[in-house]
């Protein structure tokens, strides 16, 4: 994996597994159903390749939600979660099983659930790094909108982002498979700090 040593790559996987464990536990508690989360792919790419990478996983026949959330302070960057409307509706249906105020055909409810799950995953991932480095990271409210290719190209243009952590995640809630693509965009300095955090993790927790 680019810019990460083998040990750092392993540490990143370990760290994210902890984060997903937390997130899964939280989701299970929230909806009262068994859930699990799998990371099927994880890589670090250059911001220049983001658009092509996304184009490679997007099914042109489907609508997608684009949830973005900015985080600041020790680590600065933005998470982008792409989830097909199909998966988002399935997620809402799972939530509605314990929350009768939710309707999986309501656009607002689908957005609400998508925002929530995206926030949970972002918080779990980035929050673990903050915990690990004993620093504070501020989260801005997440935003949701329909996915447009042009906006991905805009991310590349004129931004300070340099590296992207690409994570393909599958959430399995009571045998309902929900797929999402999470992209963690980091600024150059934040990426260095992320690597420092990984080194710290290796030093204190690994092995």
């Amino acid at each position, binding site marked *: 994996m680019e810019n990460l040593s083998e040990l750092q790559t392993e540490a990143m996987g370990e760290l994210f597994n902890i984060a997903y464990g937390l*997130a899964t536990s939280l989701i299970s*508690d929230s909806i009262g159903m068994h859930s699990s989360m799998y990371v099927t792919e994880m890589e670090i790419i250059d911001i220049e390749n983001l658009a092509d990478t996304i184009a490679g996983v997007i099914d042109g026949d489907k609508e997608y939600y684009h949830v973005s959330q900015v985080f600041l302070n020790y680590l600065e960057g933005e998470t982008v979660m792409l989830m097909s409307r199909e998966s988002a509706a399935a997620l809402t249906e799972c939530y509605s099983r314990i929350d009768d105020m939710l309707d999986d055909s309501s656009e*607002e409810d689908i957005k609400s659930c998508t925002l929530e799950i995206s926030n949970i995953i972002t*918080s*779990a991932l980035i929050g673990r790094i903050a915990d690990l480095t004993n620093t504070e990271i501020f989260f801005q409210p997440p935003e949701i909108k329909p996915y447009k290719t042009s906006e991905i190209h805009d991310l590349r243009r004129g931004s300070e982002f340099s590296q992207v952590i690409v994570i393909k995640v599958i959430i399995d809630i009571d045998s309902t498979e929900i797929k999402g693509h999470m992209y963690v965009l980091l600024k150059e300095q934040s990426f260095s700090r992320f690597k420092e955090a990984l080194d710290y993790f290796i030093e204190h927790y690994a092995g």
Partner: protein
Amino acid sequence: MTAPNYLDHILNGAMVLDEQCTVLFWNHWLEIQTGIKRGDIVGNSLYDFFPDINKKLIERKLRQVYALNTPAFINAEAEKYLLKIPSKKISGKIYDYMLQNVVISAYDKKERYTLFMIYDQTSLLEARVRLETSTRLLEEQHSLLQNTLDFQANVIFVMDDNKIVNYNNNFLEVFGYDSVERVNSGERDLLSYVSAEKNENLNDIYGSFNNFILDSLNRNRLNKISVADKNTGRETTFLFSVRKMPENSTIIVSMTDITLLQNREKVLQDINLELSRRYEDKNTELKKLNFDLARNRDQLRIAQEVASIGSFEYSCATGSIFLSHGLKIIFDNPDIAALSLPDVLAYLKPEYRKAVSDKVALACREGGDFSAYAEIVSKKGVEKPIGIHCRVFGSMDEGRRLTITMNDLTNIKQLENQIKDREQLVSSLFDVADIGFVITDRSGVIFRVNSAFLSMTGYESDDLIGASLDKLHIESYKSDYGQYERDDKDALSEVTLTHRNGAKLYAYMNVSTFKGQDEDEYRVLALTDITDRINLLSEQKEQEQLLIQQSKMAAMGEMIGVIGHQWKQPLNSMSLILDNIKSDVEDDMLDMEMLNIGIDRCLEQIHFMSETIDDFRSFFSHETVVSAFDLKSTVNNTVRLLSPLFERHGTKIDIVSELDKNVYVTGIANEFKHTLMNLLSNSKDAISSRILNDTRFKGRITIFMSVEDSSVFITVCDNGGGIPEKVLSHIFKPYFTTKGDKGTGIGMYLAQIIISKKMNGSITAENKGEGACIRITLPVS
């Protein structure tokens, strides 16, 4: 609980709840927005005041806050609000309730108190809704405008600072579908797509399309430009007008396709041009016709003079006549002032006048052209034969006019006489020639023969004139005569034809074809009698054959010598064996075993002698068939036969052959053997002369054989002292010999005939080294 004072001064809502959602803090902003006093709500459950709150949602959010130690959020767009607070807006209200973003974070982790920060997003979202509505309306209007633009027949586009900001479909069709992207990216200026009238280089003048447009705008004039279709290259011409928007730098350009109009204008111009050109052509043609008419009149006058023709026009109705200049010349009276037909007829000899006068009267009465012959007496008293031809013009009703031409035949008569004289001359030459001539028409019918031909064939002229050429039985015949006597083989053909008495005649025949002026074809056969020469040739061939036979006989004499020599040894041996047997019988010493040995030895000698005789017979067999034979074995056999005798005469024969395979030549093998034997015999004779002078002299004959391309070379060289230079060029002539009475003088002559004429080769002689070399060249079969 106590909360920081500043929470009362912020323009957002802030409340602190415990885990059971009991309100612990309620800030001033919330008091104002909800109308619920802090004193009333603090200590009570939030749900009591806001029963519509989604408890499950709150529970999930709180769980997240404490599980992940990160804030949770409620989104105004998705969940609308946390607290149902009626909107305070009076005008322009879209939402009935305040839309809220809520940030939920841990306030006191230990006590699990949670801070809810509530942000009013109503105005923002309402603004967004209005913006979306405006955008939608704008898009609709833009779409309408675009449709209107697209509906226009003109090319319309909007430019701003050299960039195309709007355009209709026609624009894309004219400039190309990638033109907007190319122009706006700076890759290509729109000016590069267009060309102006009079081939002005717009790019050099203006630099950019924007400048070009501005220039035409400032000069307030209509401009024409052309755009070439990038696929077909066909140019479309546009008239364009420009309008500049007053409030900014935007320019609207409208282009009207005037190609069709321009084409029509051009067509009209072309038609006008064509009409004026045709008018000019006709005018020129008319002038030319007038000129030609005048010239023709002159030419007619000159032609009549040259051709000795004159004419006059006669009006049957009025009796008036008009005489041409030519007629005046024929009459030898340039000043003639004939006013009537009788004035003209007066020049005719009296015996012709009435006949011509009657014909003229008949032509006037009934029409119909006529011709007549007459003779006139000119003013100078010269009698002239005249051909008269009359053509009638017009009908009886409109008054007939006669054009009567008179042709002075004096020169023609003279010419006819000359031709007759020449014909007689040619005819006499024809008859005097010793070559037979036969002239036929295209179908082979004889219409003229000369006396030489009649003499050659024994026919009378009447036998052949009008008869077919087949009567002479002319057939192609190829005699050997041509080979001997003629170089120009292709000019003539050799034929046989039959004499009246049935005898066969040989002749050279040359056929020429002539085309007469009447397009008829004539064939002239010229025949030269060569019967005597052919007969002579036949006799010559017989003589040659005789010579060959004589040569063969001479060779036979030579061969008898050879056989004599070949037999001498076995005869001596047999004589000795028989003597021994006789002695042994006499001494009573002969037993059967010894007798058998003696008999076997004798039989061996007899067998050897028999082989010699077989060779001899083969050598002299009367072979006449021309065929391909193996050269190498033929030479070897001949040498094998002659070697013993030659060696006895002190001469050794060697064969040096470069032939690595069988080489075949065509001819009669025996004739070639005789030729070779002749050459070897000559060498032996020359060597014998040297041996007479020096008994120790060793004679040597070497036969070299080699092949190159399609020729084989046989060279017989000896060391017999060579041929005297002065006789070298005569050795192939008949009856030429250097051996005096011992030679016949036909050996080399026949060798040349056999090699050159019968085997299509060549034979040459030269002196080389100690003797002579005879070189034979033959074509390989």
